[in-house]
């Protein structure tokens, strides 16, 4: 079954707005949640990540909010720019033994100038 779910599948915002990308997971043992950004024709690249011991992580315009009890997290992109247009993948893994990352299906973000 799908271990990591993302919504919406696609999102369009105006330049300057805050884009909110959602992610939920099934396995309570997951404790590390990276978000990857992928531009067309390229491989994914790590954008920002959070550990389950934290409920918030900020890096510039990008913020992850994490709710362990509800097994949900979200990526907020403040002051969205056209250059942020990409597909964003939420991933999850456990910190025991080897790390097997489970990826969501991605959210395609379009920022309109």
């Amino acid at each position, binding site marked *: 079954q799908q271990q990591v779910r993302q919504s919406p599948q696609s999102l369009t915002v105006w330049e300057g707005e805050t884009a909110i990308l959602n992610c939920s997971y099934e396995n309570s043992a997951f404790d590390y949640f*990276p978000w990857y950004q992928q531009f067309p024709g390229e491989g*994914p690249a790590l954008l920002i990540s959070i550990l389950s011991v934290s409920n918030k992580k900020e890096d510039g315009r990008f913020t992850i909010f994490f709710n362990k009890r509800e097994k949900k997290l979200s990526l907020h992109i403040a002051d969205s720019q056209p250059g942020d247009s990409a597909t964003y993948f939420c991933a999850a893994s456990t910190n025991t033994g080897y*790390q097997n990352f489970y*990826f969501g*299906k991605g959210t395609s973000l379009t920022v309109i100038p």
Partner: protein
Amino acid sequence: EAAVTQSPRNKVAVTGGKVTLSCNQTNNHNNMYWYRQDTGHGLRLIHYSYGAGSTEKGDIPDGYKASRPSQENFSLILELATPSQTSVYFCASGDAGGGNERLFFGHGTKLSVL
């Protein structure tokens, strides 16, 4: 800058043929991974490796083999390619530092099996 290079970038193969996808990393990372990316499925793990000489099955290994002859190189082998293996394949290396591994991906190989 970490670098993962995949070859070829595009490949057209015939059903039943053998296909080898190659990956080279200059990061000196122990861990390497092969994923496939399909619309509606995201990234799915095929095989991975902890170091030279090791290969392990991921979540969808059927129809694929892997080879890790050295720290730098990790290959994915399709012995008998099928149309269902048409996909974009990504290789990644991982800096498994303290368990919060960061994956560095290549640009991908687009494989079409006709």
